């Protein structure tokens, strides 16, 4: 089980409060975490990753254990603390005006 913290607008879309807990088969990666998140909350498809390319949307960032994972490839393994459910994976709307 991993823990994911969504930004405010995505919590609203998904109609959840607080953290989301997800079951991910095998050692979790960025891609498998997002696959599990979108499977549980289909409304989030296209809001974090592009529908077709699955690339990160430009103003969405990923953090875990004080590390910026935004530029890491999708197959990047999440830190052990995240895989163990000790630390959350943070999905953040980047500071970008407006």
């Amino acid at each position, binding site marked *: 089980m991993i823990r994911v913290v969504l*930004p*405010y*607008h*995505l919590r609203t*879309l998904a109609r959840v409060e607080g953290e989301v807990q997800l079951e991910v088969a095998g050692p979790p990666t960025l891609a498998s975490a997002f696959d599990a998140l979108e499977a549980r909350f289909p*409304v989030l*498809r*296209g*809001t*974090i990753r592009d*529908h*077709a390319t699955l690339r990160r*949307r430009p*103003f*969405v960032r990923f953090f875990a254990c004080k590390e910026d994972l935004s530029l890491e490839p999708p197959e990047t393994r999440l830190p052990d603390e995240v895989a163990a459910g000790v630390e959350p994976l943070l999905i953040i*709307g*980047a500071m*970008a005006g*407006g």
Partner: protein
Amino acid sequence: MSKLRVLVGTKKGAFILTADGNRKRWKVSGPFFAGWELYHLKGSPVDPDRLYASQTSGWFGQMIQRSNDGGKTWEAVGNEFKYEGVPGTHKWYDGTQHPWEFKRIWHLEPSLTDPDTVYAGAEDAAMFRTVDGGRTWQELPGLRDAKGHLWQPGAGGMGLHTIVLDPSDANRIYIAISAAGAFRTDDAGKTWKPINRGLKSQFELPDPDAEVGHCVHRIAMHKARPGVLFMQKHWDVMRTDNAGDSWQEVSGNLPTDFGFPIDVHAHEPETIYVVPIKSDSEHFPLDGKLRVYRSRTGGNDWEALTKGLPQKDCYVNVLRDAMSVDSLEPSGIYFGTTGGQVYASADSGDTWKAIVHDLPAVLSVEVQTLS
């Protein structure tokens, strides 16, 4: 008694304003989708409680929301807008070719006959359609064959912002795209042709016969005269009496013919409304006076409508999708400003009143006349 429902899209959410047929006391509901840009909301003509909304964000992309109960509750429906086949390229700012990239939906136009069918105008310019109530969207790619490789975005983006369905011919649709022009299909969207003959854009387009590249801001039609269209272009107010095959300028005595919205009175096909804006460099009313101009002759002869509108120190803009008319008697006219006011006239424009003052910048206004 009839009821009015005004759907207002703003930079920071949607609002729904309701009143009875007296149009005096308005109730404001919202914000819906607070914090998101609501480019456009519109109801189905055949099922007015079926509403569609384009919800967008620079961070999280495009959402389409649907309501089946007049806006009390909403559900997110499909948000995948995929260009058909290999998307190809259009002209870029430096003259090179640039791939089509989906950014947002500017305009939603529900079918005149089926509440599950909706057309959507996209940036980068393309036309999409759903026939399942918004769950899935398919492009009508023939539009981009109408010299799409020559379309070039302007500063506001290359958005398909206007969709006009011909009530007398289900196969005929008109659309307009910023900095590309107006287009028409006569076969329900399979093939399209530019309809820009007569438009003059001498500063933007040196070629006086350019088929595409004209910056059309808005097109309006009266349902009783589907072959007559009125256009607010970047500069110039235009009309066509032959379904867009040729256009004539009808700016007449307007103090400035730059502007964004244009609309037609619900019961008088030759009565039209524009909001003149000072210039393409200064997007606010001339002399700080917010004036709607009305022509009862289909253009050329215009009168200023000022009663109830600020006549000094007013520097708001009125965007292209932010004007609408109701079909009561007399017809009501509504428009929203970038200052967050929605003004309404219950007497065809003779007098105005702000029915809400302090919303976020208004992007779109649509009125539903409910029986």
